[in-house]
């Protein structure tokens, strides 16, 4: 509720500022600004009786749960996979956005991810996420030093191409989006020493999603062109190969208005010679007490990582937004 109030104020200030963009002299601007502020002080009097109220740019006009959540790399989706929906609760005339923190702990490693994702007019999604991968005591066993961290920054963009996941319930045509994630691993020398060809690269993905409302189901699948080792944390490419087409998919069941159950499956390249890399999966429950708070809890199996055996554990993600 408090967040709603804040975004409403932003919107009104934004509208007020719109009135002064034609002026460029300092004093004129100041005078115009005070006029605009005077309007803001009595926001309802300005409207003619019949004209519709201006739509709130940050009005969270989408229906609860329909945009999905922020996935581990910062894109709109579910736990491990990207969806075609544009993240955030903004409609085609609104802007939405959220911040997330995601925490994954497995047998030997912990991963933290923090980022911001915004959706513009239900067409374009932009995201930034930083991941910290802590090797804990395995770092010592691998000769990297205990608690050695592989980190990466991920800048993402996704554009909605065609189709409608939510409203076109009378057709099978899914919503389809094209996305890119630029990833930059921070320990360039180390990832090259373990065999990676590069410490940065771009993943490209094409994702198709559909809500089957009469079945209370969400189905999504994506093809990803990538050479990221362990999502990019261990660099890109290696002695066993370069770019390849990988798959990520998910199925989610709308249990009730505020709870969603689901599972993700994601294939990964296996480019490094020193250690085998497996597919990853997650089974999750999402709790959406409102459009502003989303909590994802999951059991995840990330497969073998860096010679430490199969990594199974717990995934928790908190998302705040509008």
């Amino acid at each position, binding site marked *: 509720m408090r967040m709603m109030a804040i975004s409403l104020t932003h919107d009104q200030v934004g509208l007020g500022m719109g009135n002064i963009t034609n002026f460029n002299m300092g004093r004129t601007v100041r005078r115009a600004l005070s006029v605009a502020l005077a309007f803001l002080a009595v926001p309802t009097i300005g409207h003619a009786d019949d004209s519709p109220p201006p739509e709130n740019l940050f009005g969270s006009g989408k229906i609860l749960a329909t945009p999905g959540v922020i996935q581990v790399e910062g894109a709109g989706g579910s736990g491990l996979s990207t969806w075609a929906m544009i993240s955030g609760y903004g409609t085609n005339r609104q802007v939405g956005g959220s911040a997330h923190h995601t925490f994954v702990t497995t047998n030997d490693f912990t991963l933290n991810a923090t980022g911001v994702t915004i959706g513009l007019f239900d067409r374009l999604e932009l995201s930034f996420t930083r991941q910290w991968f802590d090797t804990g005591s395995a770092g010592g066993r691998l000769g990297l030093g205990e608690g050695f961290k592989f980190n990466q920054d991920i800048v993402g963009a996704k554009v909605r191409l065609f189709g409608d996941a939510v409203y076109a*319930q*009378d057709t099978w045509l899914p919503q389809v989006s094209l996305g890119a994630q630029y990833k930059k691993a921070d320990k360039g020398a180390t990832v090259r020493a373990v065999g990676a060809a590069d410490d940065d690269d771009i993943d490209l993905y094409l994702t198709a999603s559909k809500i089957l409302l009469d079945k209370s189901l969400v189905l999504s699948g994506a093809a990803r062109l990538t050479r990221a080792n362990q999502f990019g944390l261990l660099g890109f490419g290696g002695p066993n190969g370069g770019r390849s087409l990988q798959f990520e998919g998910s199925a989610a069941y709308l249990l009730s208005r505020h709870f969603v159950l689901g599972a993700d499956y994601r294939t990964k390249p296996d480019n490094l010679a020193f250690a085998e890399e497996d597919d990853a999966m997650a089974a999750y429950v999402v709790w959406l007490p409102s459009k502003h708070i989303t909590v994802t809890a999951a059991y995840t199996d990330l497969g073998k990582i860096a010679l430490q055996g199969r990594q199974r554990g717990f995934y928790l993600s908190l998302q705040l937004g509008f």
Partner: protein
Amino acid sequence: MKPISTLALALFIGLSTPAQAASLFDDLGGLESITRFTNRLVDLTFTDPRTAHQFKHTKKERLARLLVDQLCEASGGPCRYKGVNMKKSHIKLGITEAEFNALVEQLQQAMDEEGVPFHAQNRLLAILAPMKRDIVER
């Protein structure tokens, strides 16, 4: 990977049988329940600031009656909608997606209050959702 995609495909095909419309009418609680949650919906629509401005010149009772017929018929019940089609009745209103969704949320609230099960609600919404093409104009 292979067994997974086969499973997903099987799921897709298995679930693609159309919902039985006749049983949806029953699952919504029949005509009495539909009438109650529709009246409640119209009350909410006429008072919620997100939608109220659209209904300043609309006769509430007539709209409620038409909506009951429409929802009853759409869910497979023994009614016949005799109003204007969705395109004609909404074309001049400049309805936004946010307004459409606000009405969906009001309907969800009204059905919750009536005790309509969540999955039956979604089956009704699945029938109404494609109407957005005719109703939302901007």
